């Protein structure tokens, strides 16, 4: 009889613990998040599990500081007092680019970008600045004055595309210098810089043994460890149709991986009735129109960023061949026809 009483009390205690676990999240860790609009011309969010807001704020400030350094180094639009960055690399002096001595972090990123150019068969090319700056100007103007929105003339784009040879970006690793030997070429690292910076900031956290964080810079998502309670992060890939009943196409379980999505619905302008987004196909010099979005899951958000952009500009078949040839990298494509396609191991991440 006594045994039975004890049993029922244990049962009761179990119930209580179970219902408590619905409201708390283990070890007194709480989930905090912060947004910043100061970096890479997009929104940055940091989410993390900590005991107190103060603890979170400290880590979050460190992450934002490091990202801000990369932002200044990789900024192609703005010069900063007392430093050389990609803006000064792009500058002309007496009609030519200077040989610029830059921070090692710039050299490392440029070398990486060149590698990715060859890995993706030229589908991600940071030497395309001359073409992309034309699109950037027309898009900015078209957003500010929608009634006067225009497409860039094709002749102008073709003329600019003559100056996109990545081999004319000459890097001297030992001397720490970079020179653009074609005066009309410009660098635009928009397809790589964010993911690269996020990866570097994430590795800094990992070196310090910090886990339970997610950094998201404009869709370049990198998880640092699992959640505070040890569970994997659940990531929902947004339905670009904006369907309230089915807001997410897939749910992925992540713990330390990167998830990067390139989408045509994030940045665009409208000419007539048609939307023109910001991912420009190096071949056609026009926005690539095969996909609504491409998502890449892998270890490094730098790879994720470069590959999602490259896949966006390749056919599904070409892209699939590329992804299957790389280990530890998976992808999901949403076509403009509404089809959802996967690489062979992508669904291993879903539940």
């Amino acid at each position, binding site marked *: 009889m006594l045994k039975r009483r004890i049993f*029922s009390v244990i049962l009761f205690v179990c*119930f209580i613990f179970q219902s408590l676990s619905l*409201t708390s999240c283990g070890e007194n860790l709480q989930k905090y998040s912060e*947004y910043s609009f100061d970096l890479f011309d997009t929104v940055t969010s940091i989410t993390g599990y900590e005991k107190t807001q103060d603890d979170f704020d400290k880590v979050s400030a460190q992450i934002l500081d490091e990202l801000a350094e990369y932002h200044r180094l990789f900024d192609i639009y703005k010069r900063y007092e007392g430093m050389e960055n990609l803006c000064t690399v792009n500058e002309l002096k007496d009609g030519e680019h200077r040989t610029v001595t830059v921070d090692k972090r710039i050299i490392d990123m440029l070398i990486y970008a060149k590698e990715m150019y060859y890995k993706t068969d030229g589908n991600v090319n940071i030497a395309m600045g001359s073409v992309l700056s034309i699109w950037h100007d027309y898009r900015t103007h078209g957003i500010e004055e929608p009634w006067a929105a225009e497409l860039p003339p094709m002749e102008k784009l073709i003329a600019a595309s003559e100056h996109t040879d990545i081999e004319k970006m000459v890097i001297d690793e030992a001397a720490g210098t970079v020179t653009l030997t074609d005066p009309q070429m410009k660098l635009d690292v928009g397809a790589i810089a964010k993911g690269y910076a996020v990866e570097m900031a994430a590795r800094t956290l990992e070196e310090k043994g910090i886990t339970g964080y997610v950094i998201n810079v404009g869709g370049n998502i990198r998880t640092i460890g699992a959640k505070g309670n040890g569970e994997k992060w*659940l990531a929902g890939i947004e339905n670009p149709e904006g369907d*309230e009943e089915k*807001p*997410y196409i897939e749910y992925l379980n992540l713990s330390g991986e990167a998830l990067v999505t390139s989408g045509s619905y994030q940045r665009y302008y409208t000419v007539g009735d048609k939307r023109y987004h910001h991912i420009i196909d190096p071949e056609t010099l026009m926005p690539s129109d095969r996909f609504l979005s491409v998502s890449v899951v892998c270890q490094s958000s730098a790879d994720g960023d470069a590959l999602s952009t490259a896949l966006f500009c390749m056919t599904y078949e070409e892209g699939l061949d590329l992804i299957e040839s790389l280990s530890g990298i998976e992808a999901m494509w949403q076509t403009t026809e509404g089809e959802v396609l996967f690489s062979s191991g992508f669904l291993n991440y879903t539940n």
Partner: protein
Amino acid sequence: MSKKNAVETAEENSKRKIKNDIIFIVALILIVALGTLCYFLFGREGDMVKVTIDGELFGEYSLSEDNVIEIRWGESFNILVIENGKARIESASCPDGICVSHRAISRSGESIICLPNKVVVSVSFSDEKNQPDIIA
């Protein structure tokens, strides 16, 4: 007291005890079930919509109360409408209008972001199961 009577009393006693135990367990289960039910019915009403401008808190509003909030900062504005447990941006001063065309949000962690106005409208995190922590 005869031997027979003593056995009957013992049996009755043990039956009563079992009955008491059953009542005890059923009552416990009922209490816990009621508590859980209350949590799901009323706990959800705690879902809040948080508005920040450039990272600074502008205000927090209950998702369960219909409301119209003018998020104004200098020249720029976003009109937030909370209706039937969902939040959406009705109109805004931003040039691209991406926040206005964004679907209504209601689930834990979902957000509408207006990049030009630096406005984030987000549903606060609840520890509900099967809700994404990350939206890609």
